[in-house]
């Protein structure tokens, strides 16, 4: 096989996602898009815009704000909402902490990542959302490979892998009991590369932290952590400036950077493809391979 670069976006994936979003709008009373400001949720917003054009996007965006976001992500979020005329609902993890529903973690690995679930479930209950649209993809990890497109959650937001409904052809069964809700995953069949190729084809804006920029970082466990007031550091962890970018966007306390000069989409896609090619063997050494770095990040992350 050749290693010709795969730039083209498979159109069937967009058609499928738009079909799913239209079914979501029709089958549920109060659907919402779970918006994190990351590339996957930006893709979902674009798909929703296209699915109902020239009508409005019939879903509000729900952002669970941990308070530890990259400021660039929040800026981007507000810009996107403003420029597309979307409705944005923000619920804060800080409120859940203040209400005593969750406790702030301590220690150098403290993060609010796990705390946001409680805030999310409260928001779903408060706002009576019966469907929450997310950007999860089956290629991300093994458990997600089993997710349905319409994934039913009980009153406590739990996913029961054993009780999943079979999904046949394109027929989506969104019937639920009162109190249950559905997570909808329109880009289930996309890979990371598909998302990037789509962003490129659609010429979408994304937060600046996806591109190479100089930033203060520290090194910990072989990963590069963004230095911020939210990160608990030890005395040995001295911040230094480095050109980096982020491959995924989460909180500043749990998203590691990769050393990169990629400042254009083409370069980012090139990096992903190169990381794939290096998988065959010794061409790029491990330290420079960002694929390995990212996976390590994920291992700590999940």
């Amino acid at each position: 096989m050749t290693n010709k670069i795969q730039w083209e976006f498979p159109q069937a994936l967009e058609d499928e996602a738009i079909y799913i979003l239209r079914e979501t709008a029709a089958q549920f009373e109060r659907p919402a898009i779970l918006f994190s400001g990351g590339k996957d949720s930006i893709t979902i917003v674009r798909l929703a815009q296209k699915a109902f054009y020239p009508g409005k996007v019939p879903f509000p965006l729900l952002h669970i704000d941990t308070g530890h976001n990259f400021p660039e992500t929040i800026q981007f979020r507000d810009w996107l909402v403003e420029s597309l005329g979307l409705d944005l609902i923000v619920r804060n993890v800080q409120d859940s902490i203040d209400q005593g529903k969750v406790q702030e973690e301590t220690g150098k690995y403290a993060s609010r990542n796990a705390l946001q679930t409680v805030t999310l479930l409260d928001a779903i209950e408060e706002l009576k959302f019966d469907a929450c649209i997310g950007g999860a993809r089956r290629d991300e990890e093994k458990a997600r490979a089993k997710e349905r497109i319409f994934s039913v959650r009980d009153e406590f937001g739990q996913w029961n892998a054993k009780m999943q409904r079979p999904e046949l052809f394109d027929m989506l069964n969104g019937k639920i009991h009162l109190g249950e809700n559905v997570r909808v995953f329109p880009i289930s069949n996309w890979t990371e590369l598909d998302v990037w190729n789509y962003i490129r084809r659609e010429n979408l804006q994304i937060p600046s932290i996806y591109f190479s920029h100089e930033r203060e970082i520290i090194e910990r466990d072989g990963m590069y952590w963004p230095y911020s007031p939210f990160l608990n550091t030890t005395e040995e962890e001295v911040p230094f400036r480095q050109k980096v970018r982020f491959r995924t966007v989460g909180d500043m306390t749990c998203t590691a950077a990769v050393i990169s000069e990629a400042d254009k989409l083409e370069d980012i896609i090139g990096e992903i493809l190169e990381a794939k090619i290096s998988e065959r063997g010794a061409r790029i050494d491990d330290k420079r391979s960002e694929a390995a770095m990212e996976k390590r990040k994920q291992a700590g992350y999940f």
Partner: protein
Amino acid sequence: MEVLRITTSGSVDDGKSTLIGRLLYDTHSIPQDKMEALHAASKRKGLDFTDLSLLTDGLVAEREQGITIDVAHIYFSTPTRKYIIADTPGHIEYTRNMVTGASNAQVSLILIDARKGIVEQTYRHFFIASLLRIPYLVVCVNKMDLVEYSEARFNQIVEDFQALIASATFKAPSIKFVPISSLYGENVAARSEKISWYSGDSLLEYLEQITFDHADNSHPSRFKVQSVIRPKTEAYHDFRGFAGKVVSGHFNIGDEIISLPSQQKSRIKTIEQFETQLATAEARQSVVITLEDEIDTSRGSMFSKPENAPALLKEISAQVCWMDQQKLVPGKTYLLQHGINRVKAKVQQIQHVIDVTSNKIVEDKKELGLNDIGKITVKLAHPIFADSYDANPANGAFILIDEFSNSTVAVGFVD
């Protein structure tokens, strides 16, 4: 770029996991760290090669733990196209997963162990591929290395399989036999030198060449309306567009259409995909259609060409695969979902149950439980606009939903 969907099914030891691992490996779809983990795991097991079957380990672990075995989705791409493999276990108790995995597939990949030849599971895979009318059937005769790459052995298996096909009611328009060794990558991506008597394509070469008829000329034109878009903004004050999906066939601007159930006719004024105006909408595309006239159309309506509109069916006979722990209860009201429409449905009669392995009617069995396949008659509260599955698969399937549990309990194929 095209997407090709493949369904594969098999047991732990027929080399299916190795084959999938090999396809991923040869298309450079395994990240470096995963590859390193594979090397290490293989070494721990005392192997002197990298065991690619460990990639799809999830399923094996599931089986050992006794939890639900499901459909796993695996993705890889080549410069030509993107592949989605729906991988399911092949035992009889997973028939419903096999049917689910096969429901979106264009290619059914059947693996045969060259040493064992055709076994019980082969019949089952073939039956399901036939039931679902999957157009491309690829039979991989695997583990050729264990039969010394014998041409005679391969020919014998091909002959046996041809006999099996001869007895079937449906024959895939394209059937391909490939002798492979997934362990050594012979004829998987690259052509094998060891199997010099075989001059055909490798598995991947064959998959790469499968062509698509986007206009879907062999099937009648059907468009399902998911919603009516009426922005009522100043710029789009009178806009009334029908957002939906081309189920089968194709539509051009200017085509006369009939809308069901209202039976009113009009012509297509525009076909839109966001800001782009299209001349044609092809099968599986999601578009917005506007019409010349205001006719009675809403969510659930179906457009077709007047000369070959689907019949309005209030009673159907269908093959079903039962997917729920609770058996089918004749006389009970279920919801039947055809495409995006749901109607109340009562199962009148279970006509017969089929043995998936022998393709014969099971004598004296008149009930449908989990994983059973049989024929039923159903009475509907409102008509559906379905084609027979045989004539037009994309508009001939339905699901049954239990009104109390809301579960999807069956999939059906209209006669």
